[in-house]
């Protein structure tokens, strides 16, 4: 889908995705019994995800609590080893890497954690925290290391004079800036942002989001942005994937997803976004889902959403819908396809 006029910059083909995730599965064993433990089942936290992450884009990953968003992020970074599936970073297969080669890859992929109160070592100063990646990969040492730490703090909008302070002396927003500075220290290509603003005050959220966006532009970062706040995801993402019970139900670019959501679950999620205008808000149609999210130990048969879907059909209970591309509209501005896993869409 490369525009013809772009060929002057001599890109023969669309650039290959930065990350290719194929049929990613993360199962956690469930044990029973105190002494003689038997494995009685699996929690299927992530059950067969397939998607690409393009270089330089922000892929938003949304879903309810416990749907496997964070697990997906950690499995891609190999902080949790996937049960099955492939994660290909450029042409390097991450799932089979171990030890030193995997450690070296951490220079290229980093993570921003949800809770800036928990993700900073309370016994290290800010300077030590930000300098640590530089020391680990022996990128800089001595005075050039100190200079780089000061530079990083400045980049994330912190006073470089704070180097000898401890994390507990900072506010949540400032701590998250420290976390960002640490993640950027090694000049990564890819950053998993695991609900980076969920633990922050609303007034600080915008600052941190804007910081992350401007850093992305300056440094050409690729983000996997995990969140449950749909308006934030809409603001920052190029494409958005919606997860339900360990599976992606819909994946589309931002405009298509918000304007023409195809999966009933996405529709329900989007209908829950409040509108900051009382007149319109009063008329807003909300789709309220019945019941709770089923247990990932025993996911429903067929389509996993069938227990709560307002449009459930008999077919949904038996047959799992395929995750496939649909042509929602032909406008060329939508640079990537719209994927959905729903029988309703197929029947239309």
């Amino acid at each position: 889908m490369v525009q013809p006029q772009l060929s002057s910059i001599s890109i023969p083909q669309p650039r290959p995705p930065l990350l290719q995730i194929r049929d990613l599965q993360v199962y956690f064993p469930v044990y029973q019994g105190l002494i003689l433990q038997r494995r009685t089942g699996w929690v299927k936290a992530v059950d067969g995800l397939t998607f690409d992450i393009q270089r330089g884009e922000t892929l938003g990953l949304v879903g309810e609590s416990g749907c496997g968003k964070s697990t997906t992020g950690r499995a891609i970074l190999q902080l949790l080893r996937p049960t099955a599936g492939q994660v290909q970073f450029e042409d390097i297969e991450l799932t089979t890497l171990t030890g030193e080669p995997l450690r070296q890859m951490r220079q290229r992929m980093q993570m921003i954690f949800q809770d800036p109160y928990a993700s900073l070592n309370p016994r290290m100063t800010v300077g030590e925290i930000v300098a640590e990646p530089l020391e680990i990969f022996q990128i800089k040492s001595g005075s050039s290391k100190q200079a780089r730490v000061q530079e990083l703090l400045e980049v994330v909008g912190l006073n470089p004079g704070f180097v000898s302070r401890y994390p507990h002396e900072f506010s949540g927003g400032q701590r998250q800036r420290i976390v960002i500075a640490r993640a950027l220290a090694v000049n990564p290509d890819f950053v998993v942002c695991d609900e980076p603003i969920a633990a922050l005050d609303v007034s600080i959220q915008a600052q941190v989001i804007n910081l992350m966006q401007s850093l992305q532009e300056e440094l050409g970062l690729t983000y996997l942005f995990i969140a449950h706040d749909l308006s934030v995801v809409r603001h920052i993402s190029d494409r958005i994937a919606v997860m339900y019970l360990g599976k992606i139900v819909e994946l589309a670019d931002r405009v298509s997803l918000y304007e023409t959501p195809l999966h009933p679950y996405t529709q329900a999620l989007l209908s829950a976004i409040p509108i900051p205008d009382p007149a319109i808000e009063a008329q807003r149609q909300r789709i309220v889902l019945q019941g709770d999210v089923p247990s990932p130990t025993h996911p429903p048969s067929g389509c996993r959403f069938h227990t709560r879907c307002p449009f459930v059909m008999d077919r949904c209970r038996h047959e799992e819908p395929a995750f496939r591309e649909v042509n929602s509209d032909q406008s060329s501005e939508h640079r990537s396809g719209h994927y959905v896993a729903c029988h309703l869409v197929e029947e239309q």
Partner: protein
Amino acid sequence: MTPPLTSPPSTAPLPTQRSEFRQFLRVLFRSPGAKIGGVILLVLITVALLAPVIAPFDPTAMGAGPILKPPSAAHWFGTDEFGRDLFSRIVYGSRLTLMIGVIAVCISMTAGVLIGMVAGYAGGWLEAVLMRAMDVLFSFTETLIALAAVAVLGPSLTNAMIAVGISSIPFYARVTYGAVLVEKNKEYFKAAQAVGAKPVRLIIRHLFPNILSPIIVIATVGVSVAVLSASALSFLGLGAQPPSPEWGAILAAGRDYFKRAPWITTFPGLAIAITVLGFNLLGDGLREALDPQQRRS
């Protein structure tokens, strides 16, 4: 709406940073218990260091005075069955007591922390083997292990220290192991892993500083336990040998004269009790002071 990229500039000079250590001491000695404990230990250390200056007599010189005399102006704590000055003996004994306590704790702490950290960090079969071994040792009382160790090593002061040290290894290993399990699952540890830290760095830079507080606390209290155990060994004749002025040994020797000369057993007993109390009070104070929640206030 263009929120500033930078946080509100706080280029004003930073408030002078109170040094970590001074702030820690301030919080520590806010509690009366820690104050008393600190004073006791300070006195004890001073006495131990200045023993030759303070003690009026040679602690092992027989016939420094008449035998079995009650406390008097010449012999503050009285004399024992050989006419040795009890005050001098107890003053010199403080050196032995402190040395035994500190060295025994160093032995058990080093071994215990190492075992606990390795087991907690490594997990798997190493964890199972190490911690089950600790459980087995833990199921015996410390004195029994110390007795067994002395039986193997032979009775002497050095061996008593080693024995007491060995006997509380499981205790330190357990506490360390528990702390490591907690810290290992905290986000900052995962963050360090995500950054690409190697195991040695993870253990030394991340785990160790964060599990240090509980270990310092139990080590302080542990000195008092070690003092007590060593005294008990000496009392049984398995630790310090006569004429060494170890408090437990003095106590044991005075037992035979308890009716005629109760001061021989009273004063070393009191000395042991006060020392143990001092370490316990300080340990409690440390426990409070090292708790970050309390420190912030």
